[in-house]
C-alpha cells in the first residue's frame, strides 16, 4: 500500500515542471488565493445569508453564487495538488512523507472532509429545499443556520491550517 501511494503521489513530471519553470509555483500560489477569494465570495456569502447577513437577499438568488464558490474550490484543489505532487522541487521530501508527517496538512484534509460532510448534511436533511423558499427578510431554520455556521468554521479552518503547513516542512 505504502509503495503504491508513494508511487502514485509522486509526480516527477510536476516536480520537474515546477523546478524548470520558476513562474509555476508563484502562479499556483496566486491562483490558490484567487480560489480562496471565490470560495468565500460564493459559499461564504451563501452561509452568511443563512446566518442573517444581507437578509434582503432571497436565498434562491444568493444560491446563484455557489457555482463561483465551487470554481474557487476547484482552483484550490488543482493548485493544491500541484503543491503536494511537486513538493520535491522545493523541499527534499516525497509527497507521501509530507502528507504522513505534516499535522497541519492532515488537519487541512480533515477539515475539507468535514466541510464535505456538512454539505452532505445540508442536502440529506432537506435544508437545501427548505431554504430555497426563503424570500427577502426571511429567517433560515435553526438547522440551516447551524450548518451554515459550521461551513464557515470549516472553510476558515481549511485556510488557517493551510497557512500553517510550512511550519512543519
Amino acid at each position, binding site marked *: 500500500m505504502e509503495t503504491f501511494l508513494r508511487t502514485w503521489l509522486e509526480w516527477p513530471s510536476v516536480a520537474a515542471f515546477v523546478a524548470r519553470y520558476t513562474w509555476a509555483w*508563484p502562479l499556483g500560489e496566486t*491562483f490558490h488565493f484567487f480560489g*480562496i*477569494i471565490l*470560495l468565500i465570495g460564493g459559499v461564504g456569502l451563501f452561509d452568511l445569508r443563512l446566518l442573517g447577513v444581507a*437578509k*434582503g437577499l432571497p436565498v434562491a438568488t*444568493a444560491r446563484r*453564487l455557489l457555482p463561483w464558490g465551487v470554481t474557487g474550490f476547484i482552483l484550490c484543489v488543482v493548485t493544491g495538488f500541484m503543491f503536494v505532487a511537486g513538493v520535491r522541487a522545493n523541499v527534499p521530501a516525497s509527497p507521501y512523507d509530507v502528507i504522513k508527517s505534516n499535522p497541519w496538512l492532515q488537519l487541512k484534509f480533515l477539515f475539507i472532509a468535514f466541510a464535505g460532510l456538512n454539505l452532505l448534511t445540508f442536502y440529506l436533511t432537506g435544508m437545501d429545499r427548505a431554504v430555497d423558499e426563503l424570500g*427577502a427578510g426571511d429567517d433560515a431554520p435553526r438547522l440551516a443556520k447551524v450548518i451554515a455556521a459550521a461551513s464557515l468554521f470549516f472553510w476558515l479552518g481549511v485556510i488557517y491550517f493551510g497557512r500553517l503547513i510550512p511550519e512543519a516542512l
Partner: protein
Amino acid sequence: MWEFLDSIENSAFSSYVRDTPSVLGYSTVLALHTFGMAFLVGLSGVIALRVLGVVPQLPLKPLKGLQPLIAAGFWLNAVTGLILTSLAIHALLRNWDFYVKLAAIALAIVALQKMRRYAFGETSAPDDAAASPRARFWAAAMLLFWGLAVLGGRLTAYATNIRIETARAVLVAVVLLLIVARYLVRRANRAVVEVRV
C-alpha cells in the same frame, strides 16, 4: 528615520511574532491576513459581479448589508499587514513589489468606494436594473486592482525576474479563464431567461 524603523523591527513584539516557535506567532498573523483578504476581496467582488451584470439575478440593494463585513476584512488586513510589515521593514521598504502591492490596494479601495457610491446611490432605480456605466467602470477597476494586489502580495518574496515571468503567466492564464468564464456565464444566464419564459 532608519533608527526608528530599526527599533520597530527589533521591538519585543516584532521579535516574538517573528521568532516564536509557537504557531500563534507569524503563521497565525499570516492566516488572519488571508481571512481579511478573503472577506474584503471576496464580498466586494460579489458586489462587483452584480454591478457588471455577471450575476444579474442578484438584487443590488441588499448587498449593502455586506459592507460591515467588507470593512471588517479591510481593518483585519490593515492591522495584520502592519504587523507583518514591522517584522521585516528594511527588506520590504527596499522591495519595489511591496510598493506595487500598496498602490494596488489604495487604488482598489478608491475604486470600491466609487463603485459603492454609484451602485447604491441610485436609490430610485429598481433592484433588478442594470448598474450605471460609471458603477460598472469602477467595479471592473476594483477587480483589476484587487487582482494586482493579490499578485503583488504573492510575489514579494521572489526575485525580480521570477516576478516578471509570473506576472506574464498570470496574465495569460487570467485571460484564458475569463474567456471560458464569459462563455459559461452567458450560457447560464441564457438558461435562466429560457426557464422564466
